């Protein structure tokens, strides 16, 4: 029979597991940077294998155009101080605001440039001509339609129709293209230079048609 009680063993194990140095902001920053760097490296290698939707979008920003993020709820903490935002209206009349933040990039100029773009460019107006084209491309892509249907059917999005989901995806990708173009004009060509970056996006939409 063992010489110590179970509670004593639990306490000892707990104590022995708590020796790791505390999480500091510096450590969290290094881990976030590593997370982006490893992802960028993997994506650079896998770029040719990326599916139709992703490849067509250029993957500049992780916009919320995954309607899974569309909700009528509250903003996530990071979205309270976003690097940029834009609004658009979906076919059913629902208005969505999309916010971009937590921009992590190998090149620190990228984040400043993104903030500048959102402050000085009406990205939605610039993107409008490309939205319908993106809607057609997404509808022609069986995978995108499947995703949209699944999200609506399973309630993973607050958007009521597949049309709305596709439209939101189209807005995200069209805005994405505008951002990429603006970055290129500022000498930051993500596709060509392989600058690694990542961001978060969240969309919050109105309850229904006004």
């Amino acid at each position, binding site marked *: 029979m063992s010489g*110590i009680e179970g509670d004593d*063993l639990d306490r000892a194990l707990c104590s022995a597991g708590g020796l790791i140095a505390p999480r500091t902001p510096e450590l969290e920053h290094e*881990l976030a940077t590593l997370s982006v760097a*490893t992802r960028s490296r*993997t994506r650079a290698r896998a770029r040719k294998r990326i599916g139709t939707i992703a490849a067509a979008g250029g993957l500049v920003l992780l916009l919320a155009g995954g309607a899974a993020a569309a909700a009528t709820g509250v903003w996530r903490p990071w979205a309270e101080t976003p690097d940029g935002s834009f609004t658009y209206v979906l076919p059913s009349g629902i208005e969505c605001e999309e916010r971009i933040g937590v921009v992590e990039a190998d090149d620190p100029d990228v984040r400043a440039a993104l903030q500048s773009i959102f402050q000085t460019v009406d990205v939605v107006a610039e993107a409008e001509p490309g939205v319908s084209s993106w809607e057609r491309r997404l509808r022609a892509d069986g995978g995108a339609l499947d995703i949209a249907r699944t999200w609506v059917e399973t309630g993973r999005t607050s958007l009521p129709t597949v049309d709305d989901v596709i439209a939101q995806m189209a807005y995200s990708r069209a805005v994405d293209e505008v951002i990429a173009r603006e970055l290129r004009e500022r000498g930051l060509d993500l596709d060509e230079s392989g600058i690694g970056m990542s961001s978060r996006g969240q969309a919050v939409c109105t309850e229904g048609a006004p």
Partner: protein
Amino acid sequence: MSRGTGRGEASRALDCVASCSPDLLAYFERRIDGPEAADLVSETMLIAWRRIDDLPQDDTEARMWLFGVARRVLANAQRASVRRWKLAERLRGHLASRPTTHDDAQAIDVRDAVRRLPEDLRDLIGLVHWEGFTLAEAAGIVGIPASTARGRYQNARRRLADMLAPALSDSGVRGGEDA
């Protein structure tokens, strides 16, 4: 199934990997010495990103999946020398320059005892007591039935109790039984 194809999915994956990264670092730091933990975190992330389409939707299952990757990375590292990743250079430097934490004698004894357990027992103890998984979740990560895990876990506890009895008795870690 539509895992890993939409941008919402990509964002979720990034959230998941980023939020688990401190725990992954702690996982490696508890099991190997020195800043090599940075390289293992880096390797785990690289493998996770390559297989990100397999990331489960459920948060708990996603965390289990990431620790499953980490466990295999650790096993490989213990069989061969740790590969040094340039990607991990900054984190490695950060860990190397970090002030060392106070490590008391009892904790050293406990960790040493855990390290002396056979691998199949050691994994369960660590995942449950240090990473905070339930025994059933730990069984899932290790890839054994929950019933098998229960037996091994009890076996591990008995062995640890025997190994640690002198050290814990000397340090007076007996709930209200200080002699």
